[in-house]
């Protein structure tokens, strides 16, 4: 279970999160919606441990542990996974090498045995197939020359390999056409389980047709302004974010 209490966070001296409270029970999928600038991406970076974001007040506990006390890699080992809105390109690192390094680092930190090469290859091939990822793509440098859809599918592949307990999807739908959206959503839905919690951050309701959330929270000015069931997303689709302080047109 993820518990966020009175979270305040700054980036470049500017306060973005301003007393955010959120509880995400095990096995549930919650959507975070809100206008641009409301703090959605900041929340994802703070959860993953990006040092550019300074937490000034409040607490985050994950399964009873103080998340703010952990390094980013320790959080990954503890089961936190952030699917990046803009996955990084790293020329010179083959995707496969990166995947194996990451999986084995996490397994080692969790006290599990590292994958042997054949076991690893078998696992990757199986999971890549579900996401319609060509194995040739994994021999290329990480995300270099990948299309937007390929990058996002690669993120979900990493998510399934690292077997996290908390999945944070930061605008995973951005830049995806309808076919790619379906493939990515199927991949995410396949990972839903009673032990796994998910935080799906999105600007648009569209993604939530595919990944149906248990709860929807609307962020405004760095805190949760409203919470409800999946129907709240549909309501926002009609009315827009005007009543939450900023609308799309004024977004940065």
């Amino acid at each position, binding site marked *: 279970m993820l518990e966020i209490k009175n979270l305040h966070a700054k980036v470049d001296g500017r306060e973005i999160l301003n007393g955010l409270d959120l509880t995400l029970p095990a096995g549930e999928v919650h959507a975070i919606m809100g206008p641009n600038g409301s703090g959605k991406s900041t929340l994802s970076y703070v959860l993953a441990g990006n040092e550019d974001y300074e937490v000034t007040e409040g607490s985050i506990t994950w399964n009873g542990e103080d998340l703010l006390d952990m390094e980013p890699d320790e959080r990954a080992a503890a089961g936190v996974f952030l699917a990046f809105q803009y996955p990084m390109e790293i020329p*010179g690192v083959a995707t496969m090498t990166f995947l194996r390094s990451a999986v084995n680092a996490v397994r080692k930190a969790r006290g599990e045995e590292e994958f042997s090469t054949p076991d690893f290859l078998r696992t990757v091939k199986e999971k890549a197939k579900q996401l319609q990822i060509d194995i040739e793509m994994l021999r290329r440098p990480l995300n270099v020359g990948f299309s937007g859809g390929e990058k996002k599918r690669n993120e979900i592949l990493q998510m399934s390999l690292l077997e996290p307990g908390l999945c944070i999807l930061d605008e995973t739908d951005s830049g995806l056409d309808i076919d790619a959206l379906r493939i990515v959503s199927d991949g995410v839905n396949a990972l839903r389980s009673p032990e796994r919690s998910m935080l799906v951050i999105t600007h648009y309701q569209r993604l939530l047709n595919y990944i149906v959330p248990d709860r929807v929270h609307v962020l405004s000015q760095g805190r949760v302004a409203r919470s409800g069931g999946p129907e709240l997303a549909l309501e926002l689709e009609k009315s827009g974010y005007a009543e939450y302080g900023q609308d799309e047109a004024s977004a940065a």
Partner: protein
Amino acid sequence: MDLPVQQFRTEAEQELLDLFERSVDALPGDASIAAMRKAAIRTYAGLGLPHRRVEAWKYTDLRGALDNVPPLLAELDVQVGESELEAAIGKACLGLPAYRVVVAAGEFRGDLSDIGALRDDGVEVVSLAQMLESPADWLTASLEDAAGCGDDVVIALNTALMTAGVALRLPEGLTLQKPIQLIHLDMIGASGSIFTRNVVVAEKGASATLIESFGTLGAKELQRNAVTTVSLAEKSAIHHVKLQREAIETIHLNVWAANVGTEARYNAFQLSAGAALSRNQVYVRFDGEDGATDISGATLARGRQHCDTTLVVEHNVPSCESRELFKLVLDDEARGVFQGKIVVKQDAQKTDGKQMSQALLLSETAEFDSKPELEIYADDVVCGHGATSGQIDEDLLFYLRARGLPEDQARALLIQAFVGEAFEALDDEAIGDALTIVAAEWLGTPLE
């Protein structure tokens, strides 16, 4: 001897002259070689050791770095077994399938070299010392050509004092299936000077790979001067690879000079990780049209290491292509130098020359000096150069850490990725893999 008068000589400068005087009678070679040596020491005496006010040595003060000059090292009975070789150049490189040639402690070691196998496969190969006694025309031509680099002090000293090495000639049309690995070693506990010369001649259409590995058996204050000249006839190809992991107190001076004939290709790759001070000079001269060269490499330096790579490519004829890519990883107070000169003569139309040097600085006190020089006298050419220096990208680091990689491992992976791009220049995958392992060991993250 009547030497040109230099107004002032440092102790080391004088000791080099004394070293020559003391050794000259014992140095190998017939009368023609002796005359060549004398001319070379006169050249040196006129120039002295290079220092900061010599433009080509702007960032590497050799005169300041040499306090004195140890005696010539020439020990035949140095114990060299497989374990010594493995410790010296690393398991990965030693394990490469190759013809092995060993030059240890200033002596050619026929007993450790695959001379018979090389000859069986058609290569003319002779110990340099032996050949200097009655030099073949191709050897003399090569030596005279190198002596023509009038103001190069490293070559001049090498010509004057060379004691060992190999002369290799690949006859017309010969394609050597395995690389030749030439292993240069020092001697445990020794303080000494080593001057080696290798001569490679590739006749028309011949091709081969030559790996020169410099490793240490544990020398103290070694001064090494190693020169290799490569002559490439029409349509020949030489891939020349260097691994340098000398002892940390060593002064390493190295010149590769290649003359590239019509439609010939000379590729050079250098990985430098050892020595206190190293100066790596690569000279490539195009003598025939449609020649090509790729000179790439990586420098890994930490502590107070100083590593200088200086390239000069002369486009004398039309339609030749040159590519240069060097990557430097500099930590602590290490200093990396890259000087790349591309000269395009008036007749060398349709020249295509590109140069890039990139440094990754891992500490605030590391330093990178880059000096590209383009001298272009032709008007229809494509030439470009670039130099960058930077630090590890924090966003990339966060991405890797968010995937579970501990900070050290994430950093090492990013450094490896940075260096790895240079390794792509190596056509031979096995050699690329072996050198990648050397780089990974340097980073402290041995690959699986």
